[in-house]
């Protein structure tokens, strides 16, 4: 799975994921999420090119969201594909991690 990290302004880091966040993909990116959650205050994660999300990938998102929340920050997921969004909601992640339809909406949530 591909993970691109772009440091933005005002303590916001943009992450773009691509591929399948199955057990293999999730294990690949989890260490990088741990690292970026320590160095950033807020993360906006673009899911437009994530075709699949397993529970192990959701685990990474929950741990990242908790780490950011503990220091007053936030994780926001952006542009999930329809089936990925359905999976996030079925697990209840939308109750603790905001899901935005685009980057502008995500930024608005952080203001």
């Amino acid at each position, binding site marked *: 799975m591909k993970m691109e990290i772009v440091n933005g302004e005002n303590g916001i880091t943009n992450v773009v994921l691509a591929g399948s966040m199955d057990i293999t993909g999730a294990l690949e990116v989890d260490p990088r999420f741990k690292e970026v959650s320590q160095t950033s205050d807020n993360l906006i994660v673009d899911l437009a090119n994530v075709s699949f999300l397993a529970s192990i990938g959701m685990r990474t998102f929950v741990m990242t969201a908790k780490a950011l929340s503990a220091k007053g920050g936030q994780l926001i997921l952006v542009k999930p594909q329809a*089936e990925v969004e359905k999976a996030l909601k079925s697990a209840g992640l939308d109750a*603790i991690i905001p899901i935005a339809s685009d980057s502008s909406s995500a930024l608005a949530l952080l203001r």
Partner: protein
Amino acid sequence: MQTWHKALSGSLAEITTAAQWVDEIVSELELPADKSYALRVCAEELLTNIFRHAGASSRKIDLRLSRFPDRVELAVEDDGQPFDVSAATPRRVDRPIENAQPGGLGVQLIHTYADRLRYNWTGCKNQVIAEFTLQQ
């Protein structure tokens, strides 16, 4: 009825290969997008459960996909420790975020995406059958 069968070990590499195998067959079956995704989720989560929790005793996994006129069945059999996923309590992530625990969501996804779930312990093997109903 069409049936596809794959035998594998519980290694991460083989589980990844098995998930790809499921993907290829699902493409062949030309199922609706939601059913394709549902099958993929259940295969991934059932296999991941075995990989993470079956213990050192798990050596053999058998996957079987069967296409019937009104449904597709995914059967997963393994020789790990007994675990009845059909009876496991599904759970969603807790709120607020301070209370959220990252684990246990796989069972929730399996219960959400399978239209029906059956389990049998043979005395030495777990057998799980996830059913996906097809519109006719």
